[in-house]
């Protein structure tokens, strides 16, 4: 009974931890609503996937695979649960008032985020499999500004996140086929504050600019896998477009005590961001019991991206992009305390072009990982280190992911 309860306790823990979660897969910037690191985010891959170039359409390790391709749930053990946490850092050159004319930095600012990526449980019963997952795939945090010089003070802060709550179901079909469907509820927030104060003997002027957005949306994803042979698995995946929509509030305020001046310009609106279709295809090939290969490609339909902020359309000239990743895995047999174990070694590459057309920016990342797999417990740790080309700012990004998986014994 305890074994049965454990994964659900783990999921409950995930849900609680996700309330403070903000870590996600590296890289990015460019617009206020841009996820930290990269625009091209689908799900929240666990450490083994990160170590293999982010491949996630044809191979599953835990319930989080359902976010990318729910059909993969049929390939999991009878009962699994997983939890991932990460430390990620990304450098950013231009964002908000930084290096766009107001605040110039020496070097490239960077921000580091530590948090829970997410977790979930998956269960399989006969040909059916189901999963419940909670993840925090996107963070909107930016490096803060705190500048002061004499009587002058300037502060800027931006924080925010997106959480996704997912339920997936899959069914094994004849001839090695599996099909899956996922329902997803996304909710998040984005908060920005700019504070400026000029103080002199004669007067003190304070200007504050606060903006707060809350948004949510619903989308579905679906997938198909085909185990062609015992060695080769192919996966197809699609995520529906959806609208992140919600209330936004703004308050612009000017205070000058000497003149008794307190001017406020307040606004409320419904902001919306139309997220694109995503199509994925993946292959997983096991060369031997020890060696395996995976490769993925995800097509993001960013040219249809649009948004409305405070009743005005956002000008986003985006292009469609194809993100690709591939990796190789070696599972070294081992024994630990007299028990059979495997130590994975993973190496991968990923190419992650960004959708902006004004700057053709793309990240190339080297990924690697290792861990320990026991009969019912696996711990994986992976790193991803990427460097950007195209913007001229040589941005860097890195992430270290730790995942823990519980696999119920047969």
């Amino acid at each position, binding site marked *: 009974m305890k074994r049965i309860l454990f994964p659900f306790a783990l999921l409950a823990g995930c849900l609680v931890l996700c309330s403070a979660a903000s870590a996600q897969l590296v890289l990015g910037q460019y617009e206020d609503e841009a996820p930290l690191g990269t625009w091209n985010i689908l799900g929240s891959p666990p450490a083994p996937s990160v170590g293999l170039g982010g491949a996630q359409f044809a191979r599953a390790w835990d319930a989080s695979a359902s976010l990318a391709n729910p059909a993969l749930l049929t390939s999991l053990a009878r009962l699994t649960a997983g939890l991932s946490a990460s430390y990620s850092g990304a450098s950013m050159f231009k964002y908000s008032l930084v290096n766009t004319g107001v605040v110039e930095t020496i070097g490239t600012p960077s921000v580091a985020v530590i948090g829970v990526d997410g977790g979930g449980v998956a269960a399989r019963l006969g040909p059916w499999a189901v999963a419940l997952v909670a993840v925090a795939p996107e963070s909107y945090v930016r490096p803060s500004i705190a500048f002061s010089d004499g009587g002058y003070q300037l502060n800027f802060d931006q924080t925010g996140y997106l959480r996704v709550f997912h339920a997936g179901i899959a069914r094994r079909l004849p001839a090695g086929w599996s099909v899956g469907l996922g329902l997803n509820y996304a909710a998040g927030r984005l908060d920005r504050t*700019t504070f400026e104060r000029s103080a002199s003997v004669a007067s003190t*002027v304070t200007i504050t600019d606060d903006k707060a957005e809350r948004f949510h949306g619903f989308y579905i994803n679906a997938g198909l896998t085909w185990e062609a042979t015992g060695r080769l698995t192919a996966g197809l995946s699609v995520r529906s477009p959806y609208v992140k929509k919600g209330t936004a509030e*703004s308050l612009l305020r*000017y205070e000058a005590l000497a003149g008794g001046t307190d001017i406020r310009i307040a606004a409320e609106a419904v902001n919306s961001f139309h997220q694109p279709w995503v199509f994925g295809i993946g292959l997983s090939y096991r060369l031997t019991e020890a060696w395996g290969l995976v490769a993925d490609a995800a097509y993001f339909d960013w040219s249809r991206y649009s948004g409305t902020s405070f009743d005005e*359309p956002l000008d986003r000239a985006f292009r469609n992009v194809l993100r690709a990743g591939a990796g190789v895995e070696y599972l070294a047999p081992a024994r630990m305390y007299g028990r059979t174990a495997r130590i994975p070694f993973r190496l991968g590459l990923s190419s992650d072009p960004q959708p902006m057309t004004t700057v053709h920016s793309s990240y190339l990342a080297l990924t690697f990982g290792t861990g320990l797999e026991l009969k019912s417990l696996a711990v994986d740790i992976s790193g991803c280190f990427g460097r950007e080309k195209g913007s001229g700012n040589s941005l860097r990004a890195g992430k270290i992911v730790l995942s823990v998986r519980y696999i119920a014994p047969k």
Partner: protein
Amino acid sequence: MRPIKLAAFGLAAAAVVLLACGGRAAEDGQIVSVAARDFASAHLSRKGLDLLMEKNGRIYLVASPGQIAALAALHVAYDIETPRFVQAAGQGLSADGGVNGAYHSTLELETDLRTLERDHPGLASLAEIGETLEKRKIYALKISDNAAVDEGEPAVLFAGCHHAREWISVEVPFLFGKYLLENYALSQEVRDLVDASEIWIVPIANPDGLEYSINVYRYWRKNRRANADGTYGVDINRNYGYAWGFDDLGSSRQQGSDVYRGTGPFSEPETAAIRGLFLAHDFRAMISFHSFAQDILGPWGYTTDAAPTDAELEAVAGTMAGLIAAVRGTVYLYGQGSRLLYLTNGDAVDWTYSLAGAPSYTIELSPVDIDHGGFFNDEAAIGAIFEETLPAMLYLTRYGIDHPLPVRPRRLVRREQPGPPPARKPKLAAVPSSAPVR
């Protein structure tokens, strides 16, 4: 400097006397009209009322609440005319909403200008006079009878938002255009002006900068040029061709400076657009709206030497200051920009004036200082600020119609780039040391 300013205001008041039979400017006054016969029989001219004009048998006055009560006590029938004069102000603003509240964004302005053009066919014609670095359109609204036809009539330009953070400078020229169109059928004065002239309204000369000011940093001033040193922006009111880069006092060669003048005269699409418009028509007067300070600043900006038509410039500015004061007593100082405020070279006013001597002014709108809002104005004050400046804009339009310029081209100086700067230093006493440039 203060006595000079006071003297200047005195002259403005005198101009009101000359223009409108004078009187004490009423605070919080209303514009009222009374029948001309009542005005005479009740001896109202002796009761300190400010007389604005006489039209169609009615006398238009500026009256304080007390004076309005006095009219009632004298059983003089009167009509409150203020709403007619400011019909466009404070109502019908489709700019409502958004993080900038009742102020216009570039998109809101485009929408409103197209609405004005659509609602007033024949009287309004919207022109795209340029495109910015970020591919936004710069619009000019032409108001005239037969607006779609170039009839070669005298033209007057009212431009706003050279500086991105000066949001009120968008609203005043826009509301002026709206007022003219909506009162064409109601007011003989407006009809006369519109029929006899081309009134050009460019509410946003710097759309890219305005959007940055709205969405990123409220105090942004310049355009959005990506400079070679990694900084952003050219001060487009230092980028015009006359006396461009005359010295490093009136503008800066430092790219990061708030008054960076750019790589050359008219290097920026915004100034090139205004140049194209101005050279294509017979402009006889011009106002470039800015904020803040409550000043009317005439040429020259680049030198403290007097402009060739200094007396005329002073008289027109004084009259405008008086008309502004007559509405509710708000004091706008006036004088040569370089003397009253500070040196500026490559600004719009010097360039438009340099072509043929068209009376050209920078009007620094309310408030008077940073303690009363600086570049901020309460949304509720938009209408009042427009209301105050409306008589001055009407007056300058009439002045432009009635005062042809000498046959162009007339150079007021011998060369595009004037000689070395004057030896004497500009008087900057009017500018608080901590005040940002305007």
